[in-house]
């Protein structure tokens, strides 16, 4: 949407709203960054001083070295990366495949299946925690990457989004490709996917993020220190008898970096409107 802007009070209102929201959302982030550089005394002191009295690297040292002193954090970061990337990729692939199937094909029970899949979005995790745990134990995948990834391989929300997006995809292109003799899978891979980039980008960010921050499931499944994920690592600093807020913030700061990187690289797929539409036409 590139509409010519004239300087008017409406613009001022727009900027004001945007900036207020900015402050609101960023304030806790600033807190995190500041607190990671402070000693415990300073963090707990109220009123909170936003400008730290000098950079204190002790929190970062503690965060990386870890409570046992064996740098397990690096392994936790790796675990989180493996899980989050796998889930992001599978969510996008399976979500688009299923969404495509539901949007562009007609078969018996299509609507029923769609409704069943949507219904899974209405199941609160707390309700199924115990049976889910039993499933994992029976499959003997507890404390493994498979156990962490498998339940999140497909996302109902992803399917929904993909289906919405692909419903408006011009069927002529698909039919033309079929006439040309392309296989169904080929059509999916070469025509549908490349044109779904904005949704794919959005979905992959969301899937990655939800796994990156997933605490409850890894708590159940990852039992050994080597298989723990980042949120579990951060929680360990908040033990009942001793909370090391500084190290927590430092660890969290380090953990935010991959998310930022991912976000920065994928936003181009859905920010510039015309660019998106161009990719759609061909």
């Amino acid at each position, binding site marked *: 949407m590139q509409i010519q802007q004239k300087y008017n009070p409406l613009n001022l209102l727009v900027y004001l709203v945007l900036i207020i929201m900015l402050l609101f959302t960023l304030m806790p982030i600033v807190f995190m960054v500041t607190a990671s550089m402070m000693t415990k005394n300073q963090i707990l002191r109220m009123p909170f001083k936003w400008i730290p009295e000098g950079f204190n690297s002790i929190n970062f040292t503690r965060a990386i070295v870890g409570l046992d002193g064996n740098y397990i954090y690096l392994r936790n970061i790796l675990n989180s990366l493996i899980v989050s990337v796998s889930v992001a990729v599978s969510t996008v692939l399976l979500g688009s495949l299923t969404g495509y199937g539901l949007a562009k094909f007609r078969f018996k029970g299509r609507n029923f299946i769609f409704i069943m899949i949507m219904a899974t979005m209405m199941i609160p995790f707390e309700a199924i925690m115990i049976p889910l745990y039993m499933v994992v134990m029976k499959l003997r995948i507890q404390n493994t990457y498979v156990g962490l990834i498998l339940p999140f391989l497909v996302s109902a929300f992803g399917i929904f989004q993909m289906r919405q997006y692909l419903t408006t995809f011009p069927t002529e292109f698909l039919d033309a490709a079929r006439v040309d003799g392309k296989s169904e899978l080929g059509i999916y891979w070469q025509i549908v996917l490349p044109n779904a980039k904005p949704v794919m980008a959005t979905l992959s960010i969301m899937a990655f993020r939800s796994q990156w921050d997933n605490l409850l499931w890894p*708590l159940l499944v990852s039992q050994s*220190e080597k298989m723990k994920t980042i949120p579990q690592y951060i929680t360990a600093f908040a*033990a009942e008898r001793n909370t090391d807020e500084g190290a927590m913030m430092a660890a969290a700061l380090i953990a935010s970096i991959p998310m930022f990187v991912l976000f920065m690289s994928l936003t181009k797929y859905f920010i510039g409107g015309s660019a998106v539409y161009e990719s759609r036409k061909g």
Partner: protein
Amino acid sequence: MKKSLYLILIIALLIPTAVFAAGAKDKAVDESKPVTINYWTHDDPARTKLENELIEKFEAMNPNITVERSTRSAQKQIELVQTAFAANEGPDMFNLPIENQYAYITNGRVAPIDYEAAGFKSKQDMLDQYMDGILDTVTVDGEVYGLPLELTNWAIYINKKVFASVGLDAEKDYPRTWEQMADISEKLTIRDGDILVRRGFDFRYPYYLIMFVPMVEQLGGSLMSADGKKAIINDDAWIQALTYMQQWGPLGRNLGSTTYQAPRYIFNADNNDIAMAHTGLYQEGRMKSENPEFFESMDWMVVPFPVFENAVNDVAAAYYGHFFMVNADSDPAVQKATWKFIGYLLSHGEDYLTRGGNLIQPTKALLESDTLKNMPYSQVFIDDMARGHMVYYGADSAEIQTQIRNAVESVMLSGESPQKALATLRSAVQEILDER
């Protein structure tokens, strides 16, 4: 059309049901030597370090035994151990606070002690080594089901400097009664309008079974009748205690509230925002590592749990314990190995005290040891232990504590009258007792 729909549905449901519902657990007796012990416990950096060392030594001495130790936060430990057992896949060895553990005994989830494997000559030998009565809490029908990892009680830490700042001498003027506690806190409190910038004392919310019920007991009341059938005994005692809390809170004298930072977290920082904290011996270890100057300066002290002026019983805050227990459904070979491991760990009582998080194992040897006596103010804790009793640990303790919490908070924060809150509490607890 309908036929295929049903087909889809049936297939979708049959696959997992067939795979999982059948589940007869194959617990084939494992005759081969190597065993693995799954040991679940809660986070505690100092204890983790110690136990990892001990595990290495133990595995070296017992090459066929592997110990898989995993940790989680204290709250999650309670929930996850339970989830695991509910799914019939509990860990081989775990520890929990006794009030959460008793249900495991009554439901047959844990195994009685294998005395010999644990390193004792006999049952009597084991009973002799521990503080009198401590093992009663895990004894059912004559069988003992757990060994204590720690026994903890809380006393009142005082920051002498804060006392001095209002002209009080902590050594002489420390509160001995709850009434004094309120008055002294009033002197120590600094407010900005309604907001408490500095508090004198504040309670250890929400551990009402440990700190509130004893206050009621001081006045002659109790949570339930001796046979456990009737809830809430002695209304006057309860009303007085509830009224005290109401006076303490924001709707009364505004000396503290449930939502400020917990005193035990901020006490060590010595930031002039709290004068007293209700916490355990382990706080000294935390102080030493977080704020060594404050610790060494000895500008702090510990005093016993206060009593009401009109108290009829001298009851200190309750103590609680963590016990090591063994999963009754684990393979027998694993169970034996686990008791051996437990015995080994617990034979290092002094290490647990000095560098494992200041944990007090209630063994006679440790309680009389010089190591314990040499820790500052340890005598206060030991004396308070004698004045107190084990926290209520029935299977429904969590539920009951929730109800007590509700009662106290409604009186403190929502302006409920103590009488009405008590009536609600009574009917709720009575219902819980009737459900048994």
